[in-house]
């Protein structure tokens, strides 16, 4: 019972981290149409810059300043480089961001070294948010913070399991939800969303109607990067802050955006949660096709039966490919994604 709960929470929280990342990408990739392969790099940058700042002025200021800094860099990049190739189409943009991701990675390693840096969560965020106490006597109970030792000690005849849910993750979830709301307001309460879409197909006309298109693009790209930066700060303290942290999330966030549906914030949210769960829940299932078949129709499948290498693979081991499977199927069966409005 408690394990199921914990697993769900884990799935949700990693889904929400994905959302933090993909929300920025939704702005940049699906609204501006820029295949920004450096997005994850900005995520990493966020973590490192926050690490540096928090060294000087503490974590909480860093939580605000680092994303701003990253956003600024992003805007600068858009203005200085990306803009020059925008009218050449998606591929040059893509290549530039590709190059940028290399540069950022190398610079980060130059400044902060090639191995992980000790970026620990602040006191307020250390320790568990709550503890699930599963006792064979008096069932499941939830204790805020850490459960007292006594509670978790198994008395004779009863075994007790205490599972903690770390504060950092709870914090992560909270921030992600805030992000969702903020973005939603930005896109619905202002015309920015409209202007971007308009400018994508007819920049000149949008200008002729009195909209400062370049500025809007710069802002949007900047905020996209800032969001990535924020995600980076959270991700940095929740997991490790190291040069490979960008590569790990690299392509999965594209999956999220596309599965969720190009140009749809709600889609990105749904997609994130879905992928998050898809990445975590299957890990808990050790059944493989073989076991399934053997269970159901007693097919005596063993190491020497044909196709064993495939049948043998447990769902847990197959977990890494599920998101991409989802991506491909989605694009074939429902190209506009879960909540998307249009095909890309």
């Amino acid at each position, binding site marked *: 019972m408690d394990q199921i709960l914990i697993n769900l929470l884990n799935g949700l929280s990693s889904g929400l981290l994905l959302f933090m990342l993909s929300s920025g990408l939704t702005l940049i990739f699906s609204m501006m149409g820029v295949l920004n392969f450096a997005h994850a790099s900005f995520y990493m940058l966020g973590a490192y810059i926050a690490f540096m700042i928090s060294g000087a002025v503490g974590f909480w200021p860093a939580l605000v300043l680092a994303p701003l800094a990253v956003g600024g860099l992003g805007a600068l990049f858009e203005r200085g480089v990306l803009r020059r190739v925008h009218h050449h189409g998606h591929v040059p943009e893509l290549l530039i961001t590709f190059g940028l991701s290399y540069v950022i990675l190398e610079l980060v390693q130059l400044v902060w070294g090639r191995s992980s840096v000790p970026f620990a969560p602040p006191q307020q965020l250390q320790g568990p948010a709550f503890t699930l106490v599963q006792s064979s006597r008096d069932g499941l109970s939830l204790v805020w913070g850490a459960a007292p030792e006594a509670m978790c000690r198994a008395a004779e005849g009863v075994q007790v399991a205490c599972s903690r849910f770390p504060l950092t993750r709870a914090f992560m979830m909270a921030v992600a939800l805030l992000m969702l709301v903020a973005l939603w307001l930005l896109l619905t309460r202002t*015309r920015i969303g409209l202007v971007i879409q*308009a400018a994508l197909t*007819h920049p000149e*006309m949008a*200008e002729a*109607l*009195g*909209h400062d298109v370049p500025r809007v693009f710069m802002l949007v790209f900047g905020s996209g990067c800032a969001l990535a930066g924020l995600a980076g700060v959270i991700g940095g303290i929740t997991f490790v802050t190291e040069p490979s942290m960008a590569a790990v999330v690299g392509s999965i966030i594209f999956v999220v955006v596309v599965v969720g549906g190009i140009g749809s914030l709600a889609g990105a949210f749904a997609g994130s949660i879905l992928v998050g769960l898809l990445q975590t829940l299957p890990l808990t299932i050790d059944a493989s096709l073989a076991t399934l078949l053997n269970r159901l129709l007693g097919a005596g499948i063993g190491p020497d039966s044909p196709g064993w290498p495939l049948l043998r693979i447990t769902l847990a081991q197959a977990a890494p490919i599920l998101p991409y499977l989802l991506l491909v199927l989605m694009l074939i069966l429902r190209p506009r994604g879960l909540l998307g409005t249009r095909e890309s």
Partner: protein
Amino acid sequence: MLEIDNLHAYYGKSHVLHGVTMRIAPGEIVALLGRNGSGRSTTVKAVMGLVEGSGSVRWGGRELLGLKAHQIAHHGLGYVPESRDIFPRLTVHQNLLLGQKKAGGTPGVRWQLDDMYAMFPRLKERQHTEAGVLSGGEQQMLTLCRTLMGDPDLIMIDEPTEGLAPKIVELVADYLRELQRRGVAVLLVEQKLTIALEVSQRCLLMGHGCIVFEGTPAELRANAGVRREWLEV
């Protein structure tokens, strides 16, 4: 008051306008006529800052050349492109909203949404469909209305009647007059001589990127020579 002096314009390297000079007084309708490729659209685009131009374009005494399109728009110029350039992914309604200079619009402007829908009921019917799927004519109506939403003092309309049913063409003619009545100056680029001559006070004839004739509709009607040389086959 729009004053264009010796305007030259280029597409990349190719030189298209060779010293265009013209004036448009407030609340005046001026028709700009000519063959395909004579440079009328380019003139309009240059004024709007959409193609690089040299020379001088003054509006209320302020120089416009070198300004960005969106700045020019905020100075009160409106532009209706011949290639309708509606925003295909947005709904009719959203297209109109983007016409407004400020979100939510400003009080005391000449035109409100309802005026537009009153003008072309067809648009009201389709207001929630993606503009991309509108019929040619509907798009034409939309693009006109969208620019009007910005409440310009001078509106430059490039071939507004193209693809419109004859009946609607008349309607448009009426509305041009209505614009004038509300003190909006109009630069009308048009193929259909009949309505151009009908609604305008002055006609300008373009050929090879220069103004080759200027006069009242009556004068143009009278002057068969010019017509033959610059309009007919």
